[in-house]
């Protein structure tokens, strides 16, 4: 009950100066929040775009990711682990958003979401095909084990094995094997869906 009343500080007005001054402490060094923000903003957005497929939503989720870093920075012993944490939060938020969208679409028209992925182009037929492909890929990723889906997304976003290991808390020596398995799983699911689609036609 007292949890609601323990907070004694008044809400603090945050300015850009505060963000610049904010530091994140690891056991080996002190990092400036500003540096992490500047250095990772575009990449976090890129990873999230790959997951959610909408720029505005990706930017919103990226802001949420950095807000969490600002508000409650984790305690790690190296900058690599800290950045790994950042992408762990980002991918969790991205897949959570996809799951919530999936739930919502049960009550809404599925076509509505397809429409969102459809981007205007000079050739509607090509765009429709591309939209269907994106929809398909995203559905498969949503059905896969979260770790495998994240591996594929992050690797495709240019993450090195060391970065993948830090983000997903895996041994770097196992990344190659796990990537092979994740790709095999993806390919198998894709083939099954294609077969099902062709049989339905």
């Amino acid at each position, binding site marked *: *009950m*007292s*949890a*609601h*009343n*323990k907070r*004694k*500080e*008044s*809400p603090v007005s*945050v300015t*850009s100066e505060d*963000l610049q001054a904010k530091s994140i402490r690891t056991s080996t060094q002190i990092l400036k929040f500003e540096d992490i*923000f*500047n250095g990772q*903003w*575009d990449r976090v*957005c*890129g990873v999230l*775009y*790959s997951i959610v497929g909408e720029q505005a939503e*990706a930017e*919103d989720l*990226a*802001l*949420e990711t*950095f*807000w*969490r870093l*600002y*508000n*409650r920075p984790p305690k790690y012993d190296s900058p690599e682990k800290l950045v790994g*944490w950042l992408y*762990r939060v980002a991918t*969790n*938020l991205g897949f*959570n*958003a996809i*799951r*919530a969208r999936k739930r*919502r679409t049960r*009550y*809404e028209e599925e076509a509505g979401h397809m429409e969102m992925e459809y981007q205007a182009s000079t050739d509607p037929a090509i765009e429709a095909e591309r939209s269907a*492909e*994106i929809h398909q*890929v*995203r559905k498969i990723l949503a059905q896969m084990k979260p770790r495998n889906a994240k591996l*594929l*997304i992050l690797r*495709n976003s240019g993450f090195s*094995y060391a970065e993948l290991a830090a983000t997903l*808390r895996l041994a770097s020596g*196992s990344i*190659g*094997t796990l*990537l*092979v398995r994740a*790709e095999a799983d*993806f*390919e198998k699911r894709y083939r099954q869906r294609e077969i099902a689609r062709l049989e339905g036609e």
Partner: protein
Amino acid sequence: MHFSDGEIRAYQDVEISSDQKERIHAHLQTCKRCQERFDQLTEQSGIVTAHLETLKPKLQADYLTVQKARRLLNNRIQKQENTSMLKKIFNPQYRLVWVTVLVMAILAIALAFPGVRAVANNFLGSFRVQQFTVVQFNPEELQNTLGSSSHFEHMLSENVNIEDKGAPFEVSDATEASAMAGIPIRLPTEIDSRQQIRVFPGASVTFDIDLSRIDMLLNELGKGDIELSPKLDGEQVTMELPTAVVASYGDCNFDPDTGEARGTDPDDPSSYASDCTTLHQMISPTISAPPELDIAQIGESFLELIGMTPEEAALFSQTVDWTTTLLIPIPRYSTTYQEVSVDGVTGTLILQKDYVPKYMLLWVKGGIVYVLSGPGDSSTALAIAASIQ
């Protein structure tokens, strides 16, 4: 000796030491089996990469500049401060106790501003929650007012006593839950996630009125001119929370350690219980209070405390039957509410706008309080509520 898939893949990705690279390179020249596997993995990787490439923007992405993003982050930090209280309320772990917290907050806070008068001919021995009404407020103001008060914290910790009637336990179905709770438990059919039904044996909450402490609190808050009825001293306000049944669907398990391992904020379980829908059912709680307690006055004082002017509070108070209504304060930011028709009665639907929008739908029917909450919008809430049988 042959190389593993993982080693071949790391070789393809140039993610191995130069020594290892040379060894695998030389091996592939002579080993047909490994060369075939190399070709298979190259093909597989190429196919999957081609599919995944479609997820990237067609053109060079033009994300917000760092400067613009930083400005938005500033705004968000301030906004989140304001909505954090609501997140707590929506959080599955807090849902069961929110009735306790809010009712006791109304009583405990408002007792500091009672304007108490003995109303002998309007005796109020007890009341039962029959409906809800929502009032929006700015959490900052309440935090500024009470968050800095040590007397308020002491009052809640020393004068408020919560007696649990047992630990929660899981039951197998609605029949068993009905037997435990003493009410017919109803469940929605419009959710296909895994169902878990738990019984919370209820609690008894008492608040001992300590006038000297309340006097100190009043002085601290600059309201020392309010006179309190000496008759209230030593009296007790009691709220009985009956056994509640909570049916949950989806990912509702809250474990801070797991959350930390998943990289989510351990203090914000709503961030990873975002796929959790719950339906609470319990007999409407009752509150017993001394006759000197003027609930309407208390209600108005509470409204003033959360930011209304005395005139606004008086006006609002006229629309509320305080003996049957539970007031739910929600932050001004990011939330909307509306009256809706649900289950044949009028309910209150609160919507929280967030990355994962959430709803809370409350109604009372046949003396039973229903609280449905989860991710989604009004159509989600009403569709699930309509399927309750």
